[in-house]
Structure formats: C-alpha cells, structure tokens
C-alpha cells in the first residue's frame, strides 16, 4: 500500500462517511492550499513619508537611569572649583528633585576631559573610544524634559506623554513607514543591564495604534523570542502546513463573520512562521568574523550591551525599521556602589564605550550610517550637586535626577556630524542657549524620517493624536 493510501486508510477511521464522500468528491490532492504567504498585508498600509526621508532606520540607544552629562560630555571646569561648597539657595528655589533635601553641596566633575576630532568636542576620560568617531556626532547639550522620575520620563521620551497608553516612537515610525523586511518584526527591542525599563513594556508598546506596531523584545539567550522553536518532532514543512490549515479556516471564518481582526490574526500567523527562521538567523552573531567581535568586544551567547549593538547592526542591515536598545544602570545616586559615579557608572561607561564606537564605525563602513539615525541618551540628566538623600550624605558619590538640562547625541541619517548644539551655564545647571525639549527631539527624528510631526497622526477618541502631542519644533541646526 502506498504511503498516501495508508494515510487515507487510517484517515477513513477518523472522519464520517459524509465528510469522506464530500472530500473524496473534491479530490484530496485538490485540497492542498497555497500559502497565503506574503500576499496578505502584514499591517494596514502605511501612510508613507510626507517628503523624502534622510534616514530610513533608527537605532535608539537608551541609557536607562539617566547618565550624568557632567562626567561624559558637558565639560565644566568651574564646577570643580565649587566642589564641596554649599549649593546657593537661589539655585534651589522652586525646583523639585527626586531625592535632594535641604541644602546639598556642589560636586565637581568626576572625570577629566580632552578635546577630540576636528570638531574638538570635549569627551571625558571615561569614554576613551568614542573620541574616534566624534566627528560623526551632533551633541545636544541643552536637552530638557518635564519629568524627573524614571518611569514617566522614559515614557515621555518614547511616547511623548508621561502617562501610559500612548504609542511609542518605534510604533509611530513603523506605522508611518511600514516594514522593509517581512520576515522580521519592524520594531525590535533589545534589553541589557539586567533590569527592564522602569515603565515596563509600555515604552515600546503600540498604545492606541494597532498592535502590529508594538516593539518585539528579542533575547540573546535561549529562544531569541520566547516559544520561537517548533515543538520536538514538528518539522518546518509540517509547521507550514499547519499554518496553512489554520489560516485557510480563518479565511473562511472571516468570510462568514466579517471581523477584520481575523485578517490581522492571519497575517500574524504568517509573521510568526517567518520569524521562526529569520529571527534566529538575524540573532546569531557567532558567524561574525573575529575582527568584528574584536571591534565590538562581543562574546556570542552573552546578554550584553555589546552584543545588542552588534545585533542592532545586523537588524538594520536586514531592514528592521526601528531598533530600540535599553541599557539599565545609569542611575548614579551614590546610595550604593552599583549606582554611584565612582562605581556602577564607570562599569556602564566601560560596557558601552567600545560597542557604541564600534557600531558607528561598523555601520559607517558598510554604508549604512547615511540612512541610519543613531540616537544616544537617557531620560534625563543629573544635578551638578552631590546627592544628599533624605538630608544625610550618601555612602558613595552621586548626583540626583536633573530634568532641566542634559546631553544627548545623534549621528547618521541626515545629521550634521561634528557639531554641538546648545550650551549650559558654567556649572551645567541650566541652559544658556539652544534648549531642546524631548518633543523637539521627537519632531526632529520624525523630520529626518520624512514626516511633518504635526501631520503624522492617528485618530483616537475623537481626536487626531500625534507623537509630539501639541508641541515640538524641528531642531534645524543639527540637520546636515
């Protein structure tokens, strides 16, 4: 008995006579379904850019916790002279801090600085590598935000609102531009530093946008995405047939009940199938040449920021639209070793300096930097004052959260390298010129991606919402 006949024979035992007769009439062979495949839309069609984009992809390196600009980029020799003195009360009036109580002392820079590159940008000794690529970078030294606690400030950076429920920037961008790779999620999230973002998955959630736009977290250990691997004993061919069967019945279901949610489900199953091959391939850095590992300082299989930087390159190379990295551990209060400028902060610098430099170098060499916007920064900066939590001194050296002024930088796609925009006062406490609000940064990012931030909207609850809410001005001075 041929195989197919044997199968048919057993199959006879499992279906009713009525069904069999009907099936037999149609012919078993004729029932095979073509893959619904890529024909069905992965997502509702993208509105597309308003004008020609300079950048096609984004890598956002979020240094979660709020790195101190005063130990990295914002060189303040005058602050060193004030070290140990009481902070003048005039600086404290009407200000809110997360932890500072009473009169804190000033804290001089815990770093030495040197100028680098043709642009002569000041970089601290904690970032010995970054100087090599500094001419690709535009520094925003007078960033400011409305929030001084991590979760709301992170939400503000990524969703334009400090409260839960708005779509994140990656979701807006993938909604606006669609995907360049149907086999990978358009918006990928990579976490390192051992702790998830304070505001949880909402910082890469899709809010009220359709959920196809939410960020997908990929891991560097185990299944790169949970439950990605097929069960033992299920080969790819059979998985394909299973999904064909599911989708074909779902298609019939849609014809009957009309719910558009079913079409989304069909495309999500297709996406899941494609992800099963494309994600492991994209996430496997083991076959990268050794000079690349040397460049980034990567070890395959680790959960590390360096690996995530290399993965970011591999993902943008494959057309992933938005790669969001979070690296936790920059919250240098001084309340403990791990969160102090003389402890954890230095580790964070060491963990990130080489891979960030490598990432800029690598994607530049591959010709990707021109169309890839790289953004570095935290949710806020830190005070020029020493933190004195609850009125007493901390055991380690640290600074409190500071929302009025901090540094971020951008490079690549449409950004003018080797410049600094914005200036702070002699102690790095307030902006003197070139203030850039988080909403301005968002407006600029969208501009580089070809969007008028006021026109990239989505109707919800009777109002057209946008990433920048009712704010935001493009920072033209940093554009190439």
């Amino acid at each position, binding site marked *: 008995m041929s195989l197919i006949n044997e199968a048919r024979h057993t199959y006879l035992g499992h279906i*009713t006579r009525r069904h069999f007769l*009907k099936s037999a009439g149609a012919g078993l062979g004729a029932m095979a379904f073509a893959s619904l495949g890529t024909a069905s839309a992965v997502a509702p069609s993208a509105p597309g850019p308003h004008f020609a984009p300079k950048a096609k992809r984004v890598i956002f390196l979020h240094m979660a916790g709020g790195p101190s600009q005063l130990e990295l980029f914002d060189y303040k020799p005058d602050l060193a002279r004030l070290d140990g003195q009481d902070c003048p009360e005039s600086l404290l009036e009407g200000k809110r801090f997360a932890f500072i109580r009473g009169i804190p002392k000033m804290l001089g820079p815990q770093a030495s600085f040197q100028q680098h590159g043709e642009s002569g940008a000041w970089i601290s000794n904690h970032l010995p590598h970054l100087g090599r690529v500094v001419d690709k970078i535009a520094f925003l030294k007078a960033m400011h935000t409305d929030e001084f606690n991590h979760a709301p400030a992170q939400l503000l950076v990524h969703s334009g609102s400090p409260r839960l429920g708005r779509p994140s920037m990656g979701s807006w961008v993938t909604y606006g531009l669609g995907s360049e790779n149907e086999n990978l999620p358009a918006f990928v999230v990579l976490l390192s530093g051992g702790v998830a973002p304070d505001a949880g998955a909402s910082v890469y959630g899709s809010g009220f946008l359709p959920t196809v736009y939410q960020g997908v977290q990929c891991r560097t250990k*185990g299944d790169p995405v949970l*439950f990605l691997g097929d069960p033992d004993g299920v080969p790819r061919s059979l998985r394909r047939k299973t999904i064909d069967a599911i989708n074909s019945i779902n298609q019939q279901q849609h014809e009957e009940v009309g719910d558009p949610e079913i079409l989304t489900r069909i495309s999500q199953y297709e*996406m899941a199938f494609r992800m099963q091959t494309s994600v492991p391939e994209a996430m496997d850095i083991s076959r990268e040449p050794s000079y690349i590992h040397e460049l980034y300082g990567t070890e395959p299989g680790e959960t590390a920021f360096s690996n995530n930087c290399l993965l970011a390159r591999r993902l943008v190379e494959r057309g992933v639209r938005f790669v969001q990295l979070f690296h936790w551990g920059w919250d240098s209060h001084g309340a403990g070793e791990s969160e102090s400028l003389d402890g954890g902060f230095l580790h964070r610098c060491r963990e990130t300096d080489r891979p960030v430099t490598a990432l800029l170098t690598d994607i530049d060499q591959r010709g990707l930097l021109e169309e890839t916007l790289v953004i570095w920064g935290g949710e806020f900066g830190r005070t020029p004052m020493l933190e004195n939590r609850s009125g007493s001194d901390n055991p380690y050296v640290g600074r409190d959260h500071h929302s009025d002024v901090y540094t971020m930088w951008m490079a690549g796609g449409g950004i003018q390298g080797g410049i600094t925009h914005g200036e702070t006062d002699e102690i790095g406490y307030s902006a003197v010129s070139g203030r850039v609000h988080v909403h301005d940064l968002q407006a600029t990012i969208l501009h580089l991606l070809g969007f008028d931030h006021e026109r990239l909207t989505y109707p919800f*609850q009777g109002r057209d919402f946008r990433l920048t809410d009712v704010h935001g001005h493009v920072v033209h001075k940093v554009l190439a």
Partner: protein
Amino acid sequence: MSRYWIGFTVLATAGILLGGCKRAPEISFNEQIRPVLNDRCVNCHGGIRRQGDLSLLFRHEALMTAESGEKAIVPFEPAESELLRRIAHTDPDLRMPKDDSALTPEEIQTFRSWIEQGAPWEDHWAYVTPERPPLPKVSNPDWIRDSLDYFVLARLDEMDWSPQSEADCPVLIRRVSLDLTGLPPSPADVNQICIAEDLSYEDYVDLLLSLPTYGERWASMWLDLARYADSQGYEKDLGRTIWRYRDWVIRAFNEDMPFDQFTIEQLAGDLLPGATESQLIATAFHRNTMTNTEGGTDDEEFRVAAVVDRVNTTWEVWQGTTFSCVQCHGHPYDPFTHREYFEFFAFFNSTADRDLDSEYPTLPFFEEEKSTEGSVLMSEITKLEDAILAQIRSDSLVALRRTWETTLNQPEVIGRVPLMKQNEVKRVVATPEKDRGDAQIWTLDHVYANLSDDPVITRLRSEKREKERAMHALNPIHTPIMQELPFQRRTHVLERGSFLLKGDRVAPDTPDVLPAMPEGAPRNRLGMAQWLVSDENPLTARVTANRFWEQIFGTGIVESLEDFGTQGLERSNADLLDYLAVSFMEDHDWSMKSFLRSVVLSATYRQSSHVTEEAIRMDPHNRNLARGPRFRLNAEKVRDQALQVSGLLSSKMYGPSVMPPQPEGLWKNPYDSRQWQTSEGDNRYRRAVYTYWRRTVPYPSMATFDSPSREVCMSRRIRTNTPLQALVTLNDPVFVEAAQALAKRMLRAEDSIAAGYTYAMGTSPAPEDMDVLSTLYTDAFAHYTENHEDSASLTGESGSIDLAALTIVANAILNLDQFLMKE
C-alpha cells in the same frame, strides 16, 4: 464620525444664526463650555498652574479678580468679562489661548451667550447621583428581553439602524459559558440546549451562575484591580503569601456576596463588630501594596507610598477617578484639591503595617490539629507585648530612656537600630518631646523595647521569643491583613507628595464635590467604605456596572473604565449607564450574579457578532451595540480553555499558587536566588487564576496575552493581536501538551477529527473546515510514517503515527481564530 460632524455643523450654524438675536439658546456648560475650558484653558489656568492668578476650574475661582486687576468672568456682563476680551483680541500677544490657535468665532459667541446667561456652572455628570431614566419608546418592542434593551434599541432607532439577529444557538452557548465561567461549554451542554432542546437558555444561565468556576473567572477580573500578586514588588520582589485573599475573592463571587458588603469587608472588614476570620482576610485587598525590602530604604517613606497606593486604588476601583494627580497638587481638571487628597489619605493612615519585611501585621492560619495550640500561643504573645510596652512606659524607666535618646546620635547606639528605622528614629528624636505624635512615640517605644537592657524587659523579651519560636514550629500560614492602630496617626498635607514635607494637619474626610458621608457613619475606613456604597454616591454603581459591561461587551459604556472625570471619555449611552447603575443598586440589590444574569439574558447580548464592512466603518468598536460582542479571550481563558478541551484541566480549587511549566532561566533576580519550581501532578493543570504571579517576571504566556504585572491597580487590559501570541499557542510546551492530550481524546472517538473540533468549539465543523483539517491530517500522517523518530518525539510514545498526526491537527484546532475569540 460623520454623525458627530453633522451635529457639530448644525450647532455651529445655529450659533452663527443666533449670534445676532437677542435671545441665544440656553448654553449647556457641560456640553459647550467645559470641553473648551478643559481643552484650551486649564492647562495654564487650572489646578496646577494659575497663570496670572486665574483658575477656571471652579466657578468661585473664575469669578475672582485676577492678577491684572480684571475679572475673567462677570456673570451677565460680557462687556466687563476680561475672558471675552482676551479670546477675541486682535493683538496676538494679548490674545488667548497664548501661543496657540484662536478659538473659533462660534466658540467665542458661545462664551458670550453663556456669560450673558449668568455663566452658570454645572457639576460634571459623574458627580451627580444617577436617577433611573424613563424607558424610551422604541420601534420594535417585541425585540426587548430586558429593560436595558430599551436604551440600546432607542439609540439604534435614532440612527435608523437595526440590531443583528440572534446568534446561532451553539455560538451563544459558548459565548455565555465563557463569559460566566471562563470555560467553554461541553459538547453535551450544547447538544442538550441547541439540539435536544431539553434545557432552556435561561436555565443554562442559572446553571452556569451556580458553578464554582464562575467565581474563578470573575476573581481574575477583580484581582487585577486588587493588584493581587504572590510577590512583594519593587527591586527584590520577594515572595508573599497572600493566596488566602485570592481564595476569599473566589468564594465571595461564588456566594454572590452583594457588592456593598464585598466592598465593606475588603476595605474595612477588620473594623466590623466581631470581625470574622474571613472578614479579616478580606482586608488583605489593601495589603497587596508593594513592600520595599531593598537595603537602605526608609520604612516610613514606603509606608507612606503604600498608603498613597491604597488611596489611588480605592479611587480607581470604586470611583473611576484618577486621584493620583492630586497627591502632589490640585487636580489639573477635576474638582479635587490637594488638601482633600490628604483628608482621604487620613482614612488609611492609621494602620499598623509599615513596610516591614515580615509583612506585619498578619493573620496566622494553623492546620486544624494545631489550631488550639496556635491560638493559645498567639494570645500569650499579645499579653507579653502589652507587658513589655507597659514596662518601658513605667516611671522606673523614664530617666533611663531619656538618656538613651540623647545618645542616639552616637554611631554605636544608632547602629543598633535596624537600618531601615534609623532615619525615622532620628526624625523622632529631633522632634521636641511635647510635639511628638502618638505614632512617633509608638515607633520609639518599639525600637526601645527591642534594645533596652532593663532586666524585666529582657526577661519578657526572651519569653516572647520562646513563644514565637513555638508558634513558628507549628508552621502557620501568615496572611497580611489590615489592622488599625490603637491611636490615629497625625495626617498632614504632604507638599508635592513628599513624605518629608509636611503641611497643614488634616482630619479624615471625603471630597466636597461628592455627597457627604452618611449620617452616623464613623470617620474611619468603615465609614468611608459605607460612604462608597451609599445610595447617594454617584460613582460606585456606575463604575462597577460599567466594569461588568466591559467584561461582557469588550468596551465600557465609558471606555475609560478608570477615569469618569472630565477628561475621561464620553459615555456612549448615558441613559443606559444610569439605568444599569440604578438597577444594580435597586433592582438587583447589589447582587452581581443577578445583575450579570439580566445582562446575558438581554436581546442586546444575544445578537450575532457577524458584521458587514459598512457596519465596521460606521462603528468599528461597536459602541452602539448593533451587534453582539466578538473579541479575543483574555490570558486566563486562553490557557484554561486549551486545558479544558484537552481534558487536562484540574478542577482543584484554592490553596497556594502553583507553577505550571515556563521556560527556564526567566527568574534572574540578583537579590533573590529563588527558582521557579515546576509543579507536579494536578498542579500543572490548574486554572490560570492559581498561577504564581511574580510582579517583575510575569508568567510569560499570560503576559504575552496582555495580563498586567499587577504592581498597581489596572482597570483595563488593552487587547493586542501579535505574532508572539501565535508562537505561544503553537509552541509553548503547555499548549503542545494540550494538543497531545486532545489528540488522545480524539483517538478514542469514533470520528476523530470532527470530534476534536467539536470538543473545542462545542459544535461540529463545517464541511470546508473538515476538508482542510483532513488534508492536514493526511500530510502529517505521511510525514510521521516516514519519520518514526519525529512521531516519537512529538508524542513521547513510539509507534504512534496516528497519534502524532492527530496531535498536529489538535494543535491547529487550538489555534483557530474561532477558538481564541469569544464570538
């Protein structure tokens, strides 16, 4: 959308036409003025910011003289009202709103007419006690099955729409079974009702309401609100034993405890006369706050944080109000003041818990044979505690104690005080003795009681320790509960919400915009709970009815379940909401089962969920209810249903939380070496409500299906539809095991493939579906015939080609849209 647009145009046109007339139509503050104020003005002239010393939040404020010396609004006198002058000003520097687009001429005219009419202010609808609306006239009275249908049909009549026809019987049976019990019906149930017709729909609904699975399903909803979890939260996120509260919720639903009693027991069960053990466990509702055991944290700071969370949660759960804004400053747009926040805070500020690692106070629960011994020990310990306190307050120790206090600034003395208490002790000692509050004295007493060298205290302490050891040896299960202190802590307004910046002292009270507390109600948590469920409270019944509605229909009548304030979303059907609220209180006497029964018996509920493209376009979210609900099952149901239809689901109820399989290596907390210990036997297959819930590492398959972390109260789960969900139901070992088990059931059935489908959906497959599944079976069979080792690894049995092929089919069935959706 188009409907609103037409409405707007008509209004606007009317405004222009009537602008020149002497008598403008009466302006509705709530509909025409407040939305503009909220949208365009209060950002700068409201609760937080009062630019130019002007606030437009309350009428009395709006009528005051502002910084400029002008009055923004002078009732009946448009010419003297600065607001009108400024919104119509031609100089862009003077024109309001500043740096923003101008109001439309129509809007300006509306303001003018409103001021001419005396600038009357109205309370926001949600703060006015609902009244039973009269039943409207409808086009087709025969359609009505429950009074609520009148309000739905009246809306459809207005729009000239008609309701959908009734859903097919098997679809309706599955819908109602999933809604009421969280589990699908058995094919036998469907058969009995839809084919044999020897059980009516009404009787089936009553049967479902009587099943113990009803309580398990509805507890899941409530536990999101209660932020119930098996861990303490924050960075370390250590374990917490509080599952007896979860069991209390399940029992309360199953016993149909009326919602008013359900409220009072959870908020103030400990204050009820002769509180029972069950009523004490109920108060664990507010012990689900997070506990911070991180080294160096200040216990007082996190005690205050827990009280803040209790206030915010109480307001979200019962009043649908985002009260958390008011913790730092006046509400930006709703009429609640900063002071009122702390007056309410005072209700919760006198409990004995204080962010201790031990979760004190707790209620120990002993195994039956140890319970006598246990209660004797408990009372002995209490006596010893009293004796210690009496001794340290005795005259003989006063002097010694003062000396001790003066030495507290020495490192070696303060060093003996537990780290997390040090700051608080320093603050107390720094306060002159006469100014110390009871709580401060109490704190110092307790610290001293543990450190004093007095021989009497030392002896009592060691006796107490001995008794505690003996009690510990009995292995009681401790559940954190609420316990009132013997005195009231002083409550102050906390400036900017900081526990260190104390402003005016305040007494417990409810906000003025809402009806006052019932006469004779005590000014404590009990009185506050009674106030929440009093007939006059305008919010509790509306908010609760709306929650149930959202669970059944997928979207609330007020979509923002958590915000009924002026920035919340407008009601889709105001009369329906008020009818449901009043009916819940009066007709159903707060019975949740009775209320739900009337909803699922309604014609509105029974409609088919089939939808046309045009209907989707007109009403994508079914706000007008011209069709039945169709949406994806929640995380719990997705799991429970797969286990149920495959025959794996355990019906075991209650007890400690269980750990069904999850991928290895997810629990990686640097401060906690505990591991996920996969449960064995029955406990692998318990309902999702019993799954161990660790706040920082939620059970992954459930998190993928949108279950929250439960760090804080969560009213709504936003439903998503992602490829990651497909990966869970295709590949998660839990779901693969369900497919294997379903395949075994199928193998035993006469008509395997059709039987598998029927187990899952309650109804037999359509011929086209059967064709597809048969083909899949044939293909799988062919593969496993050639690859025996694959069939062995999929099924765990050798020589099981048929079983392997059926497992593939079962896996597909468990992934069908129809299976994952409530239709």
